[in-house]
């Protein structure tokens, strides 16, 4: 991990939150770029393996049987 906070976009060191209205970014530009990434569906997290996926897909339709 780098020392001190860094801008998530350009990786430059950023000022502390109290002194930086654009925190956690270095400036409004990088915040806008970040927003573009969210809206451009470029941020993804790992989502299990293929096998697990097959288990999960049928679930939403019927839901689980209640135990009550």
């Amino acid at each position: 991990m780098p020392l001190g906070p860094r801008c998530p976009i350009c990786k430059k060191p950023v000022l502390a939150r109290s002194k930086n209205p654009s925190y956690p970014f270095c400036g409004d530009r990088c915040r806008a770029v970040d927003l573009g990434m969210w809206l451009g569906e470029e941020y993804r997290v790992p989502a299990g393996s293929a096998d697990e996926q097959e288990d999960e897909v049928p679930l939403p339709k019927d839901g689980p049987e209640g135990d009550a």
Partner: protein
Amino acid sequence: MEKTVPTEALDTPAAEYTASSITVLDGLEAVRKRPGMYIGDTNVYGLHHLVYEVVDNSVDEALAGFCTEVEVVIHVDNSVTVTDNGRGIPVGPHPTVKGMDTVDVVMTKLHAGGKFENSAYKVSGGLHGVGVSCVNALSEWLEVEIQREGKVYRQRYARGVPQQQVAQIGVTEKRGTKVSFKPDTSIFEVTELNFDTLSQRLRELAFLNATLKISITDERTSKSHEFKFEGGIVSFVEYLNRAKEALNEKPIYFRAIKDQVELEIAMQWNDGYDERIFTFANNINTHEGGTHLSGFKSALTRTINTYAEKNQLWKDLKEAPTGEDAREGLAAVISVKVPNPQFEGQTKTKLGNSEIKGLVEQMVNEQLAIWLEENPNNARKIVAKIGDATRARLAARKARETVRRKGVLDSGSLPGKLADCQTRDPKESELYIVEGDSAGGSAKQGRDRRNQAVLPLRGKILNVEKARFEKMLTSAEIVTLITALGTGIGKEEYKPQEVRYHRIILMTDADVDGSHIRTLLLTFFFRQMPELIGNGFLYIAQPPLYKVTRNKKDTYLKDDEAKNEYLLNITAERAKVLTPKKEISGGEIRELLRKVITYKARLDKLSARRDPRIIDALVQSARIETDTLLNLEALNGEVEKMHAHLEARSPEVLPHLKMFRKDDPEHQAKKLVFRTEVNGSPKETVLDHAFLSSPEYRELLLLREAFEALGEAPYKVKFEEQQVEAASVQQVLDAALADAQKGLNIQRYKGLGEMNPEQLWDTTMDPARRTLLQVKVDDAVESDEIFSLLMGEAVEPRREFIEKNALEVQNLDI
């Protein structure tokens, strides 16, 4: 005014500067009547302009090659002295103005001066050509002292009127002109000269005229500066970038002379975003730009685009960079020297000469292309930076467009997926952001409609590689979220104070996927809506991990700790432990077993780098302190005990066990290394000074003390119907937990979707019974770090993180 210019090279000192070089154009009365017309205004700008006007005359001498030093002094009464070592104003009867000395003509006749003859000065700044006579007209007094051809002359004026004949007052070996003046307080609304304002302009002039020394001294404060830059405008660019990190190590510099026009450009990109281009024509700062600037801009964009395309450096760009992209982080100085400058614009600081555009364009096209070819490393850095700027611009635009298109601005319409609450008071309102449609459905049915809103988010799963999937929030979902929150987004539209809910609660599954989605959402809030976290509006729901049914009564337990506590309470009700020393029951049993659980948890923590069975044997059977490592005999004895313990409790360790004694020279002691196998893979457990003095080991020893109070195993554990024998405290715990689970139905929730609406309300949404974790900024910072890991720029930490998390979740599956 329009004169043809002789075509000699610029740096050859030109024709003689004598009395005949001066022509007369006008008188001074008009200047005092309407000073604004001549010097801009009678305020701060005009006042300082007087000084520039006089200094410009000296700089013109320098441009012509006759002057190397200019000295400016601000006196205590706000009068000013400007001294140069130029040729000195010509003295003697003026050839065309009958009966007047040339000095008086220069100082009193408007538009009189060598620069209108073009031969004495090929180029000159001399703002608007009003000349020093304007300064004279607007000064209470002005004194000029000239050192020329071995003699010293002096003349004095009051409000432009000569006070005597020009007189020789002495002899000298030096030459130059000294002008002192005091701005007329009956004309100017302000009289205080600003040292910093003057310094800035003088520094600029020193940059523009390499090697010219310009000094300024303020007698009022004793402040002074001396400017002299061998590097000229290259130094200027370095000065502009002094607080930044430069991209190309040295400024790029071009110079050319063509058709009597001298062009000079220096430029350097830095890692910032500002564009700082200074343009000058004949030393005048052309704030409004003009033909030199437009020529530069178009050539810069074109040349860099051509280079990048030729080398296929921008293949991935969806759109070509614009000029603004190319100039992001650029510091540049453009200086042109033109025989007949035409100034236009509001403040007459826009260069109008149309021929200059083509000249600048041609020079930049040619020379920049050569520079790029000859400096491939720097060229690539610059091109990469411009590519980044372009991508950033496109991303920001996309964000703007998406938000507009999807109608976030139209706050009247709420998204269809949102089940809103009835109250409109944000302080009372809660928004549950729920992962998955089925859980969302349960939450919608189970909630308190009055003040609880529910927004289900499903995310989208992508098959990245054969067996690898990734999940993301779709842009539609993000827009839905923003609309539901009511804050808008982006620099102009984001208004955190308009958030519609003061409790925003993330409710995700208690598995790895759920924690990833939660991280994703936390990161979004942290980055785009940090005020909501700062205000304490963001929470994490705590759905239970277990449902326990005992005697037809349901109990929900939020995690393993809660489950153990529940089971220990049952044990306390119905078990007794008989040890050689005493019989314990009730609360005492619960206390003991809590310690056993802690002990196991600590061993588990240590297991990442050690074999927990070895550590257990060490703690339970041996007495090894740091001192023991110094004593070989004692050490051997303790190792024997450990061996015996392992034989009795963990015989499966023995076939693979290898033990080494090694030297630990740093502590002049031994250390023990045990090699074992854990699940088929080799593990090395080191017992050395560092470990034996660690807080972790000390805590284990403290727990051991509690166990020792029971006396030697075996122990008897008596339950209601049966009695079992336990060889260790761990076995007591195992027996107790097994007994307590009899007659219980323990259900582990794998996801929120397994709960029906009532269960969800009872456990997670009912304000009277739920627990919520409030998200603090620190948590969010951590989330962002985890998120960065998940984004996987560093592949190895990412894999480690995912494996570790997966492992933890497996461990929960008891």
